């Protein structure tokens, strides 16, 4: 069930990527990612699964262009996200673990943020922000400041903010981990539907096997320091029995 993606087809391409924090070779150096190879095809929903501290967030930050790899090559749509940082304006959106809403902006102003960076005309960006807020069930809360919204509502605003720019690539770093299970479940389902509907490529970081199975059509399990220990793809045709097999295999890999 391993997915075959060639580097040329890949929306995201990692080639022998390593990341060392601190001076490489020194006693304080810490190898967070070790020689990883990964290709994600356009439209794929990849769940990266691993225990805390296994380097998931480092890989995430390198794909987002927020961290530079120590060795190896990272390419997103054929370009280096760190060196060509500005060229990804409007092409990549991130949903973080916490909502990270600007407290001095209302819900609708927070959703408009990415569009402001793209110099979208005011009326157009207001309409887009309104559309996504309504779609995520926040109609009527446009002018509320973050402190007046509940945790689940704030995370919806941050999802609306990510979708509003119409970016092709969505990066999500455990966006539902701070929410209660029922709210997280509802938002997760909404999120998957919106990603599929809009044909996005998504990388979803999680430490929950259930969440990875629910969200991904491919799961990569990382072992510390971030190395791929298991890589599996599946689709709607994958039945419950096969999914249970995948779940138990992931459990074995994580426990090993």
């Amino acid at each position, binding site marked *: 069930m391993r997915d075959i993606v060639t580097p040329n087809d890949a929306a995201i391409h990692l080639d022998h990527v390593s990341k060392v924090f601190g001076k490489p070779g020194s006693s304080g150096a810490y190898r967070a990612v070790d020689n990883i190879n990964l290709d994600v095809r356009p439209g794929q929903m990849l769940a990266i699964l691993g225990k805390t501290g296994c380097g998931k967030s480092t890989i995430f930050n390198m794909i987002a262009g927020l961290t530079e790899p120590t060795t190896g090559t990272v390419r997103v749509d054929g370009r280096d996200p760190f060196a060509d940082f500005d060229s990804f304006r409007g092409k990549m959106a991130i949903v973080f673990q916490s909502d990270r809403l600007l407290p001095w902006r209302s819900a609708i102003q927070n959703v408009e943020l990415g569009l402001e960076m793209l110099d979208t005309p005011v009326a157009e960006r207001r309409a887009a922000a309104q559309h996504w807020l309504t779609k995520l069930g926040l109609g009527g809360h446009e002018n509320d400041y973050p402190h007046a919204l*509940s945790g689940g509502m704030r995370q919806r605003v941050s999802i609306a903010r990510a979708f509003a720019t119409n970016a092709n690539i969505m990066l999500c770093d455990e966006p539902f981990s701070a929410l*209660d299970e029922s709210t997280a479940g509802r938002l997760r389902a909404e999120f998957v539907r919106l990603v599929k509907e809009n044909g996005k490529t998504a990388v979803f970081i999680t430490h929950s096997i259930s969440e990875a199975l629910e969200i991904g059509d491919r799961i990569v399990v990382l072992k510390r320091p971030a190395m791929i220990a298991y890589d599996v793809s599946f689709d709607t045709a994958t039945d419950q029995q096969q999914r249970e097999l995948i779940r138990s295999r992931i459990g074995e890999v994580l426990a090993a």
Partner: protein
Amino acid sequence: MSDAMPQAATPSLADNVLGMAKRLGMSVLPFAVVIALWQFASLFFPRFLFPSLIDVFWRCIDIFSTGSMFADVLATVFRILAGLAGAFIVGGLLALLMVRSRAIDRFLSPILSLFQGIPALSWVVFAIIWFHGVEFRIFFIMVMTTLPSFTFQVLGALRAMSRDLMEMVFSFRPTRMKLFRVMIAPAILPDILTAWKVNLGNASRVVVVAELVGATGGVGYELLQQQQLFDMAGALAWTLQLVFFVLIVQGILTLIENTAFRYRAVSERVI
């Protein structure tokens, strides 16, 4: 965290009016006490020690209504604002450089700390020895005495900015200008307003010293005249001009705070 909406209670009109009256009463009360104590003292002490506040009131009216005297007040106000603006601009730029470069920070921090230890009066003496122009002397003194605190306050605000929020804004790839407008300026604004409030009080004290020894006009110069005439009512009236100015500007800054920071959640339980 749940998905439920937090409940907000809406106060009635009567509650609002009562609250406003209470706040007004509380802000007027301290002034009323000081005024009453002074007036009480004026009944028992000679006029040159504690003049009646009625005399002081008429002297204030005199200052407001006499063009040349009111020009002295405006000159002092302009000197304070120009000095503060100069120190804020230079201090803000230094803070930006210091936050961007550790080497610049290590170089400038000790110098600014050294400046902070120099008394305002020493800067007055230095300015008189170094420069000829009265206005430049006063501007120099105002900038040098308020520069370190502006720099350190802006630097502290820049360093205290949330790294999470910065990364979030960075993820949208903003230009430098947009990063400043959407993230940096709103994040440091509360500290900037506090810095202005603190430095305003300092500047109004320093400007008087600078004008006492180095100017031919302004509130400080007029205070010197009152001292030579042994005229307490005049000294108090001129002092009140500065107090009024500080209160007005503090009021404007508070108004800006109330408008700009209305997004803040207010806890019902006080510290």
